């Protein structure tokens, strides 16, 4: 049984890693289009990516939109999560459900909806339009992550802080916030990644003005299969890896140096 599980694990890892094994070498390819295995290796497509405005502008758009989406999402999700997790009120379960609705509706339905709705409002093909749409989609994800964290939060800690002389505000600043920080960061990261990665809605409403990176990649692969796509995929993968490993590295380094010296 354990043997079977082990092999299953190996298969799953191979399955997940396979695209990387193909994409990463292709980004260093010298071929004219996507081709595996590459006939030769070079940095040509990295240079192409970093010098071509038709790639850099969508990249920049995506960064701006994802950042704005993250900020807006967190502004909505943090108070909402505290209210929904900690307080009993009429209609709470309905509010809970509404928070998660965007997860249940197919993206394409959302996209069509936004297209006609934002069209009427005159914000289709604008950054604001994309940010609003992405926020609606990121809210349930950020909410799920944060509410799981908040449910696991031991409220005795807040009572302890208050008994020790901390006002509710100071309790929030000195105790609640620092302890929830990892949850908040992960929640924000998910919101950012969701926006950065979102394709379907972007294709419908981002237009030329607010063109996002995934939309540009989609257009590109349909037209010419430009190996720059492999470059972008590799860079994104490196970034995610950094995001995952980075914090652990920092924590490991910090643990080696005790912060308070014994008197």
């Amino acid at each position: 049984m354990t043997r079977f599980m082990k092999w299953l694990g190996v298969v799953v890892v191979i399955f997940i890693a396979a695209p990387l094994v193909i994409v990463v070498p292709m980004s260093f390819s010298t071929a004219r289009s996507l081709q595996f295995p590459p006939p030769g290796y070079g940095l040509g497509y990295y240079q192409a990516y970093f010098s071509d405005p038709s790639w850099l502008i969508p990249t920049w758009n995506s960064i701006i939109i994802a950042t704005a989406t993250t900020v807006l999402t967190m502004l909505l999700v943090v108070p909402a999560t505290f209210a929904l997790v900690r307080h009993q009120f009429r209609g709470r379960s309905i509010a809970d459900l509404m928070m998660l609705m965007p997860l249940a509706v197919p993206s394409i339905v959302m996209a069509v909806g936004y297209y006609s709705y934002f069209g009427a409002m005159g914000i289709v093909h604008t950054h604001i339009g994309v940010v609003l749409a992405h926020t609606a989609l990121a809210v349930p994800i950020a909410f799920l992550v944060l509410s799981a964290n908040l449910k696991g939060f031991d409220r005795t800690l807040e009572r302890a802080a208050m008994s020790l002389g901390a006002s509710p505000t100071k309790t929030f600043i000195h105790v609640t916030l620092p302890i929830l920080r990892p949850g908040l960061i992960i929640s924000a990261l998910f919101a950012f990644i969701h926006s950065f990665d979102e394709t379907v809605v972007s294709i419908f409403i981002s237009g030329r003005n607010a063109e996002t990176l995934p939309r540009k990649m989609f257009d590109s692969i349909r037209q010419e299969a430009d190996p720059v796509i492999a470059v972008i995929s590799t860079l994104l993968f490196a970034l995610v890896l950094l995001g995952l490993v980075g914090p652990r590295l920092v924590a490991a380094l910090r643990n080696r140096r005790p912060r308070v010296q014994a008197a």
Partner: protein
Amino acid sequence: MSYLDLKGINKSYGQFVALNDVNLSAAKGEFVTFLGPSGSGKTTTLMIIAGFEKATTGSVEIDGRPLQGLAPHERNIGIVFQNYGLFPHKTAAENVYFPLQMRSVKRAAGLKRAEEMLELVGLRDFGHRYPKELSGGQQQRVALARALVFEPSLLLLDEPLGALDKNLREQMQIEIKRIQRALGVTTIFVTHDQTEAMSMSDRIVVFEGGRINQVAAPLDLYHKPETRFVAGFIGESNLIEAVVTDPVARTASAAHLGEVEYAPTDKAKKGQGVTLMIRPEHMRLSRNPIEGRRNAQMKVETIVNYGDNALVIGKVGDLTMRVRVLGADVVIIKENQDCCISWTPDAVYLIAK
């Protein structure tokens, strides 16, 4: 001179009455224990004193000053919670510094004071450790240091030793008493463990179903319980239903035992239903009746050996009786044998309620 006063406290959660007319006074520096089964209202009372719960009616006063209207952080009351409530993102020293930080003490001076406090609770050189790097007993000590460092007007401990194993528990009982005496802080200690209450307290408050059942010094509680509940809750006892037959001759009649003479009391009235309490260690076990004592025939059912002593449990008629004997004496008796138990009238304590 009373220092802490609880006056007529009632607490209801909807229809459910969690506290029913709780009144209590404690002197400055006193160590008072709340003892009672789970759900009897001990924590609720503490939380009302601390300001986390609001009493439906009644008031709490410290040193003659009502606490009403003060938020928890304005009350200057130290609390040790059962699961310690240490801040996981702060070191032991930073945890102990926290209440000083909230009182605007500078970091350097505050951390120095925190280290001194940690030393008092026996944790010198542990200041730089995070809670997860400390054992349960050590975390307990940090929580105690943190609750005491700001010189609170009252210290509340809610079942603080519940999560510790037996040896560590006993060690911490002694530690807590030592530190409490050294600082002279008025303390309320909550427990459902009667031996813990007996060994630590100046006075014990027995809770039952949201009411205070009895308030007394540990030995008074043991020897002079006012209610059947207290008699049954504190230590082992034989509780016998009886009816007073003659208050002058001090006799009551009980099923299976007949007329039983009891110790002097002013509580008995003729014809009244009462409970007679005889502690197992106040009875003697023998093969034959002993002259000058009240004797009864008992059939031994179970012998529980504790090494230094043993508890012999058997039946007099349908009545279950427990007798404590010295470990060395237990050889004279075997299970399923008939034997004699005996006592003197002084050992029979009458409980009117």
